[in-house]
C-alpha cells in the first residue's frame, strides 16, 4: 500500500518534506512505526513518536486503510 504521511516539527527535519510517500509492508500502525524507525533511525532518538490516523491518536494495532490521513506526531510543545 502506498501511504502519504504528514510530517511536522522535527520529523520533517529528519525525514524530509511533508507529505512523505512510503510503500508500506503490513497494514498496522505498529508496522508503520517499525518501517519508519528502520529507515530513519534518528526517529528512535525522540522522546516519543505517536501516529495519528484521521486526526486521532492511533493504537499500535489499528489497521491503516487506503485513503486514511496518517501523520507522525513528535513530542508536542504548544502553549
Amino acid at each position, binding site marked *: 500500500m502506498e501511504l502519504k504521511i504528514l510530517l511536522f*516539527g522535527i520529523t520533517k*527535519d529528519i525525514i524530509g518534506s511533508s507529505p512523505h510517500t512510503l510503500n508500506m509492508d503490513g497494514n498496522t500502525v505498529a508496522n508503520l512505526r517499525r518501517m519508519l524507525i528502520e529507515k530513519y533511525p534518528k526517529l528512535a532518538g525522540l522522546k516519543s513518536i505517536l501516529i*495519528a490516523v484521521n486526526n486521532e491518536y492511533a493504537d499500535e494495532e489499528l489497521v491503516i486503510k487506503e485513503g486514511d490521513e496518517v*501523520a507522525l506526531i513528535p513530542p*508536542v*510543545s*504548544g502553549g
Partner: protein
Amino acid sequence: MIQIKEEQLSVEEAIKYVSYPACGGINTFVGTVRNSTKGRNVLHLEFEAYPAMAILELKKIAERAKNEFGAFEIAILHRIGKVEIGEAAVVIAVSSPHREASFAACKFAIDTLKNTVPIWKKEIFEDGEVWVSAHP
C-alpha cells in the same frame, strides 16, 4: 471559541466571549514567550500546528473543561508562525458561576493542551534553533 491563528491573540476578546451574566468568575491564562531558556537567549519562537487535528484536540479539552471541571464557557486561542518575545502564544479564558471551577478548568485546559494538542514550538537562538521537548 477555539482558534489557531497567525495574528496576535486578544485576551479581551477571549474574556468577552466567555462572559455571561450568570457567571461570577473568569480565570484566564496567557502563555507568553520568554526571553531565555536554560540560560540561553531566545530571539523568537516559531509555532507549527497540525491544524485539523489540533482543533479537534482543543475541542475535546473544551468539552472536558465543561463536563468534568464545571466551566460554563471556554475560549482557547493559540498562535502559530513567528511569535516575538513577550507576545502571547496561548490564551485561555474560562467562566463559571463560582470561581473555583474557573481556576480548575483553566489549569486543566493548559496542562492538557501542553500534553495532547499537536502544536510544536521551535526556539530560535543566535546560533541555532531547537524543537522544544523533542529529545529526552
